[in-house]
């Protein structure tokens, strides 16, 4: 009897190990909850990035069995004397300027159209997103078939308006526009989607006021819609900027950088350097440069979001 009472008091005074454990978890939930995700993030993302920096200052060939050798910044110095790299950087710039100047106006126009009310709008909006959700590799293959110079359906359509066979992917001057076309086809829906979100959040009153004051569609677009949707548009521009900077899938499938190096972007050059020539150290230094560029663009994106949203 007495022993039982003792046991009871003991139980109340000092909780069991299990209770202590649960209590500890309960009090420290704020960081315990984040711990698994944090560990995975550090292990999977933060650590590889530091490892990348480490590799980029070494002369490191994955084949041949020669141990990596520390060479300081020589990879970076060599990088900015590498004509193939500079050309790919320039090409990526052209890709960005060309792609964005088509995709942003087109996406905004489509968004303005699908922001109106008309029958079938819902299903049309959904269907418009198909290129975005389809697998890039399969779609790139379809485009290769459609762009075939002798039997492709695109050239067939062009022949209707009297344009002869166009060698889309094997003409040095046409390969970038052709790839931009595919990029535009795939990602303009995303621009339209972002713009639609921005448009549907706009207040209606200014538009009604403008309509009553007699402003026509053209004026309403330039003086009202565009300035009001600009913050959203900026986000779309930056998203596309970052994505085009990283563009690789359909270029790799469609041309592998060819003909010659005419469609080799920095990301593709990086990929080939690392995983085809196994020049790990040099490839890493290209990765670091790309990462720096993307990070700069991302910081601009975060700033733009903070000031506008």
């Amino acid at each position, binding site marked *: 009897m007495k022993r039982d009472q003792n046991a009871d008091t003991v139980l109340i005074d000092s909780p069991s190990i299990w209770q202590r454990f649960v*209590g500890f978890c*309960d009090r420290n939930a704020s960081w315990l909850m984040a711990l698994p995700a944090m560990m995975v993030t550090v292990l999977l*993302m933060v650590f590889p990035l530091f490892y990348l920096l480490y590799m980029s200052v070494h002369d490191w060939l*994955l084949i041949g069995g020669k141990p990596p050798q520390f060479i300081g910044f020589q990879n970076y110095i060599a990088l900015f004397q590498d004509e193939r790299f500079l050309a790919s950087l320039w090409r990526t710039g052209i890709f960005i300027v060309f792609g964005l100047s088509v995709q942003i106006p087109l996406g905004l126009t489509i968004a303005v159209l699908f922001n109106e009310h008309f029958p079938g709008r819902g299903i049309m909006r959904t269907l418009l997103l198909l290129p975005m959700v389809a697998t890039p590799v399969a779609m790139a293959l379809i485009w290769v078939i459609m762009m075939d110079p002798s039997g492709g*359906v695109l050239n067939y359509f062009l022949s209707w308006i009297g344009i002869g066979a166009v060698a889309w992917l094997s003409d040095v001057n046409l390969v970038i526009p052709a790839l931009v076309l595919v990029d535009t086809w795939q990602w303009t829906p995303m621009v339209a989607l972002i713009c639609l979100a921005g448009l549907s959040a706009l207040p209606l009153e200014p538009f009604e006021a403008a*309509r009553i004051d007699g402003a026509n569609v053209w004026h309403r677009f330039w003086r009202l819609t565009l300035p009001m949707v600009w913050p959203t548009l900026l986000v779309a521009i930056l998203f596309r900027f970052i994505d085009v900077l990283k563009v690789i899938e359909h270029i790799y499938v469609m041309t592998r950088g060819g003909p010659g190096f005419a469609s080799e972007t920095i990301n593709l050059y990086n990929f080939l350097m690392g995983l085809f020539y196994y020049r790990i150290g040099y490839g890493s230094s290209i*990765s670091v440069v790309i990462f720096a560029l993307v990070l700069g663009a991302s910081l601009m994106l975060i700033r733009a979001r903070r000031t506008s949203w």
Partner: protein
Amino acid sequence: MVGSGRLTRSPARHNPAFRKALLFVLGIMVLVPFLFPFFWMLLGSIKTEVDFMAYPPVWLFRPTIENYVKVFVENDFGTFALNSTIVAAFTTFFALLFGIPGAYAVARYKRTGFALIVLAARMAPGIAFLLPWFVLFVQLRLTNTYFALVTSHLIFTLPLILWMMIGFIPRRSSRRPWSMAARFGGLCSASSSP
């Protein structure tokens, strides 16, 4: 309506039915180029080799399911589909396992710094992870394993899950009815024990 004649020149533009029909046609015109590659893909998949290579392209032809039979019977499509399913299932499972508590910590305990680190990692180009992971996997002899694929997919799935789930978890400042109920029900034993 007073002065409505001043707004538009053509009376047709004021007609809502005409306007809607015009917008509908414009919508279709926008949609056609975006959907054509899918249409061409489907059409090509039921053409014979001869019809597929024909120029000018044939629009009327005898459809065949030969290509589908080839994919499923002659090629190892089942194995590839199974591989993808295994990788997708494990990736989703682990991303949810790590992501949901992480999102809870961000939403409830305002761990915004942590959330931003995860986001920054998400914004890094895939190529920046490709080389380190490739070298590491080669050194650990983990290339050509499901493990390597699942971990590399986690890099992109985990941040997505984490950031999506933040929105679904109520903030701490709300009255937290279910959390209180769980406490009274004895789920969080330390604070409810005497």
